[in-house]
């Protein structure tokens, strides 16, 4: 079963057909890229998937359940975590407050209990705070814990926003241009971070991204949108050389930058270093042991055992040799139900 299954999605704004016949699958533990020129409808697709827009046609299924018309906050509680193109946070609040706000759906107490200030509320608040601290540590943002978000640099904001999305305890993470405002080095770092986060939090991701090397590096599968329609889909290496994609988006010949993204010894070494760095911050979940004491739990947490998928995309495994398995996500792939022409091959 796919984590996310979008079928025949279409939305119109007045006379503008922003999306038309979009089919998209995201399987368990996959990182799926959504690319395309400006105005292609990528963010619109995100908004339809996360419930901010109601599509005119088509369905959105989440783990088999039809969630096409579910409002955003319901989807957030289900496990849709998302970031925004232009940083979605409460800018007048501190980093810590934002991370606590983001845990709203998992707060674990009611409005009335919160107002009365019951003992259970206090315990839950401490858990929320511990989790927020763990996320700040994980992202190396502890220094801005009590600072107002509004004054931070754009790159920091994007990273903290990712932290907020993580704080919503997502199952499926939808990232809208996570590297915007970042330099090439920071972008590469973010790519490694995404891979590490997938491992640690057992995440599945759908990523809108313009930074092509990142897409090629981390994505297991790529969808290319153009003028609201699916132009092509396939594994990154195929997309990279797809003539229509090159013409519509990449422009001319495949740029040099793309060549260096294939797995090399250097990449493997980098992976090992990142791995280690991530291990040092392995506190990914906090558990109330008893009497409100918070204990860090250092184990990765597969949310669900990989189940049989309808899609024939080779499943992404989280446990077996991570570096090799995850680093090069280039795998043979076939569409399950070819209801339309497969443009990727």
């Amino acid at each position, binding site marked *: 079963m796919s984590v996310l299954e979008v079928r025949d999605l279409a939305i119109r704004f007045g006379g503008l057909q922003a999306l038309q016949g979009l089919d998209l699958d995201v399987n368990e533990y996959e990182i799926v890229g959504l690319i395309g020129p400006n105005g292609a409808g990528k963010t619109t697709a995100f908004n339809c998937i996360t419930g*901010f827009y109601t599509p005119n046609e088509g369905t959105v299924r989440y783990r088999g359940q039809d969630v096409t018309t579910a409002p955003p906050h319901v989807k957030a509680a289900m496990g849709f975590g998302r970031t925004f193109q232009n940083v*979605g946070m409460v800018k*007048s609040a501190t980093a810590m407050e934002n991370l606590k*706000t*983001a845990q709203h759906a998992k707060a674990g107490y009611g409005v009335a209990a*919160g*107002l009365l200030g019951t003992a259970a509320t206090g315990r839950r608040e401490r858990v929320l705070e511990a989790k927020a601290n763990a996320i700040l540590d994980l992202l190396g943002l502890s220094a801005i814990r009590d600072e107002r978000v*509004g004054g931070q640099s754009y790159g920091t904001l994007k990273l903290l926003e990712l932290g907020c999305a993580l704080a919503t305890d997502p199952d499926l993470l939808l990232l809208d241009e996570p590297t915007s405002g970042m330099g090439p080095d920071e972008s590469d770092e973010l790519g490694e971070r995404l891979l590490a986060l997938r491992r640690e939090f057992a995440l599945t991701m759908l990523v809108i991204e313009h930074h092509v090397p990142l897409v090629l590096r981390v994505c297991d599968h790529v969808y290319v949108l153009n003028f609201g329609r699916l132009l092509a889909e396939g594994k990154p290496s195929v997309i990279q050389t797809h003539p229509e994609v090159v013409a519509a988006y990449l422009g001319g010949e495949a740029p040099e930058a793309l060549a260096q993204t294939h797995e090399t010894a250097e990449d493997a070494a980098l992976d090992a270093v990142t791995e280690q760095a991530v291990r040092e911050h392995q506190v990914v979940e906090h558990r109330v042991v008893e009497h409100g004491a918070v204990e860090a739990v250092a184990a990765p947490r597969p949310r669900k055992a990989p189940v049989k998928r309808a899609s024939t995309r080779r499943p992404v495994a989280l446990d077996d040799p991570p570096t090799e398995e995850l680093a090069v996500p280039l795998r043979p792939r076939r569409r399950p139900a070819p209801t339309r022409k497969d443009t990727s091959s």
Partner: protein
Amino acid sequence: MTAVVDPPVGRTPPAAGPDRAAEAVARPRREFGPVRWVPRAVVLLALAWWALVYVPGTFAYSAFAADACIYAIIGLSLNIVIGYTGQLSLGHQGFVGVGAFAAAYSLTVQEVPFAATFVIAAGLAAVFALVLGLVALRITGLYLALITLVFGLTLEGSLFEIPRFTNGGAGQPADRPQFLFDDGRFYLFCLAFLVLACYVDYRLLRSKTGRALLALKENERVAEAFGINVTAFKLIAFTLSGALAGVAGALFAYRIGIVTGSGFGFFLALTFVLMTVVGGLGDRLGVIMGSSFFAVLPFLLEDSPLKRAEEAIAGVLSFGDAGTEANIIQFFPQALGALLLLLTLVQFPGGLAQQVRPFTDWLKGEPFDARALLPHRGSSGPGTVEGSSVRA
């Protein structure tokens, strides 16, 4: 196993594990010796004595002090809607009126126990606020302000004029029980309610509800992405605000002893908004101070330098015409309010809260920082008006 009842481990800071210890090292506690705390304790004790002993024992002050408490509760109520949720309500006097009439009617006509009248007042006002909240879901900004304005005016002109509930122009009596006849005691009674309102406000900000309101005030889309049900929490804000205003209304009814519909006009709503903004939106202490100031303004205008200033200004502006002078004096509080509002928006966006922060920080053990008293434009403390619909 040993079933010894150990004290909760998580509550005792030293035994809470390496994390807490590390935190303690990172943020060393300030030394808080007698030199630091004695003057602060003296000030706090003096304030407490003034509020709890001197004012209730002074006949001339206690009635106004009760007013100050009631206005402060209304200010906190309005702050939830304007300061935290970013909606504007010009109809709050309606909720206060509903609370006042509900208390008076249930006590005098239905002969409900005194304590229960507060529950009825809060509940009924909350229902009215919920209805207004439903409107606020669809409309924001200027048009919401207009709708709430009309809502308040309509209540004043319709519901508050129904003779069966309000006893017509004669007003609905609301007699205090024996033990509250004394104004000093009644003030302490109101003060207790104010403390309760402060606790609710404190808990609101410390729980997910307050965070949800602040998030949706700034950006509804982000709030939704965080899993916050924007619709529900807007309604919760209005309902909670209405309930607080209803309680204040009940206290108001017992304060004046007889409730008439004409007492809940538009000027009252205007005063409520003014006192909240001038106090400092989003800041509990500031709002309480602003509200108290506007509550005791009539008293200050009876006998104080302010009275002489008022007379001097009125004398100049009226060119010696007695009728005009009376008019000017009648609208003086509003004019002063408008002036203070202007000063707040332009020079002190944090309101009174910003002005008293050096003092409150000092009480908390910080050194006194007089620079904060100077006007600073574009300041962005938590109590700024920016982003709320007041400025829009």
